[in-house]
């Protein structure tokens, strides 16, 4: 038996401590602003480029980091900088300057990309595009790009970006890398969502035991117990699906079909879990949970926003249907492999 998947307990504790200092929203605003103070701390600790070739950390550690960040609603582009942009830069053999903060996107042939997370706030935008002779990647200084700022429903900067592809110094990159980039992005969002769900569960349990109506704590009502129990169930299932995909990713064996299957399962389970966890967490909290003043929305809104990135829930479900139909009459041996990578 292999050792079960586990992130080092010490690292987990450190991450929890670091992210508990996250600033959160500024009072009265729905906009998320890059928490540069937290970023500086993370950079000092080597957490902003956790999985760079130099550190040897894997997706297992990165998942622990993303979960801790999401649990504390930290406004930092760790997923974009490390798991997407940083990885692309390394893959393409472009010069890596770890102090630079990056995001990444796929642009169309005209150099346009929409909804690019954190583009207004970073130093560089790593752009992927398909040129007539194959896929290319460029590490573009933000000031060389035209940016129209936008925000997603969680208030996070998601900007439209335009780059002059002819002027950008670019390198060729295999199409498989582009496919893997999409899967990495999709999985990163799923990992983050499980972190937020875990905190939603904690807040809901806590609120149910503190808030008194009809002379007793809400937690004494069976209807409330069941709402919270269902948050726990969906969160646990989502986490199991995500962990399986993270394990595939960390094993780095390069079978993208297999990886896609694990990521698709994770995205499907997480996406449907989002429906239940967000609805129930808000139901338990009553009116106060719907206000800007209460923290709950800092956890529920990102989950809804992340669900729309790197493929919608419907698209992931449909992709799975397609895969199992193509697998023929035996979806079991397709899903539960009896061979090791």
């Amino acid at each position, binding site marked *: 038996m*292999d050792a079960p998947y586990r992130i080092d307990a010490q690292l987990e504790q450190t991450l929890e401590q670091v992210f508990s200092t996250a600033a959160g929203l500024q009072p009265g605003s729905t906009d998320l602003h890059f928490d540069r103070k937290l970023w500086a701390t993370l950079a000092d600790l080597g957490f902003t480029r956790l999985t760079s070739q130099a550190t040897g950390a894997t997706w297992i550690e990165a998942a622990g980091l993303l979960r*801790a960040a999401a649990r504390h609603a930290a406004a930092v582009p760790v997923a974009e900088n490390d798991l997407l942009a940083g990885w692309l830069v390394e893959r393409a053999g472009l010069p890596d300057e770890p102090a630079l903060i990056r995001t990444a996107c796929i642009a169309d042939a005209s150099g346009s990309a929409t909804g690019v997370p954190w583009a207004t706030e970073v130093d560089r935008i790593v752009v992927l595009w398909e040129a007539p002779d194959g896929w290319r990647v460029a590490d573009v200084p933000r000031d060389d790009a035209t940016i129209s700022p936008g925000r997603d429903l969680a208030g996070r900067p998601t900007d439209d970006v335009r780059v002059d592809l002819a002027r950008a110094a670019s390198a060729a990159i295999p199409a498989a890398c582009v496919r893997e980039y999409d899967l990495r992005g999709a999985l990163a969002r799923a990992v983050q969502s499980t972190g937020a769900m875990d905190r939603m*569960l904690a807040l809901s349990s806590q609120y149910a035991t503190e808030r008194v109506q009809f002379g007793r704590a809400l937690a004494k009502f069976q209807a*409330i117990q069941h709402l919270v129990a269902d948050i726990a169930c969906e969160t646990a299932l989502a986490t199991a*699906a995500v962990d399986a995909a993270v394990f595939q990713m960390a094993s780095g064996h390069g079978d993208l079909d297999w990886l896609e299957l694990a990521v698709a399962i994770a995205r499907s389970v997480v996406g449907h879990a989002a429906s239940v966890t967000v609805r129930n967490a808000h139901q338990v909290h009553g009116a106060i949970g719907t206000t800007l003043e209460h923290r709950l929305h800092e956890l529920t809104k990102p989950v809804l926003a992340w669900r729309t990135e790197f493929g919608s829930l419907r698209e992931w479900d449909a992709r799975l249907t397609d895969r*199992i139909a193509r697998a023929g*009459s035996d979806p079991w041996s397709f899903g539960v492999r009896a061979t090791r990578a």
Partner: protein
Amino acid sequence: MSFAPAAHHVHESAELCALRVDVRAFIRDEIASGGFVPAVDCWLNSWDAAFSRRLAARGWLGMTIPVEYGGHGRTFLERFVVTEELLAAGAPLAAHWISDRQIGPSLMKFGSEEQRRKLLPGIAAGEVFFAIGMSEPDSGSDLASVRTKAVKVDGGWQLTGSKIWTSGAHLSHYFIVLARSAPLDPEHRHAGLSQYIVALDAPGIEIRPIVSMNGHHHFNQVFFDGVFVPDAMLFGREGDGWKQVTSELSYERSGPERFLSTWPVLAEMAAATARGDLAPDPELGRMFARLMALHQMSLSVADALTNGRATDQEAAIVKVLGTATEGDIAELAGSTIGGGDASDGLARLRAMTATALLSRPGFTLRGGTNEILRGVIARGLGLR
């Protein structure tokens, strides 16, 4: 750090993968030679003693029972892999299901040496089948309220009362009975209960069939009219009945039978989609994803049990989600297929779906209802 009951990811070893390959080959041969026809809810409905013995011949019954008692000394994970493959194939497992899943492990934990020697070899050989005698007409979820009475007599105990919903009692050799062996103390409702191993052909036992709404007969009501149970068949310790019953719940609740009862329906829907007889429906992918995630969770509970860790919370979660999902698959099929005709390629799916829809109400009841289990989960979260 995480607040939710944390399952840990388990990656199957090469040995476990090899075991899966063996079981798959066996299943292919069985189906090809007409050994069985894949069925819905096979672990409750498909009784085939000859198939059980073919499994035993492979060493796939009583896997976790030590060799000295006729078993195979293998791990819970190995048993997990074998049963999961068989359930996914819809193989007829009902005959040995209870004896293999819980009686074997319980005997190892609580049974006397004499009971182990007498019963375990037969369980591992597929020769001795068990039923469960817990529920009574007035005691369902509130199991501690059972009223079947055990009175101490010379050389043993005398049982009076009745058990209901006893699946397979009419075909089994024994059942394990929870009875009140000391008067009820309202302050300590869980005290004074004991378990007994009762031969189903003992004098004073009457077994009456109860037919389910799909026309199948697996349920029974079993009446005891002063049935004598020798001292040697008291199971575990007198008065420890409640503790013994609840200590087995992780095994009972987290297994793959809690999410695979309708897998053959999903597999048939996938096949019909591949043939072009059904339009591709994202809901199918969604169900597949949930079952794959449940497979991971259930595997991690099996791993925890192998390593002797308690996992009541995770087990309850697997059962709540798994039984709801297997019911949702029946629903998905039921809301997808229409009346159709013989030429639409869906005859097989239609037949399976009918069985699945009529079995579905039982999924979220048997083995502790989902309402009771949500209570267990809420308690674990500190809400009650």
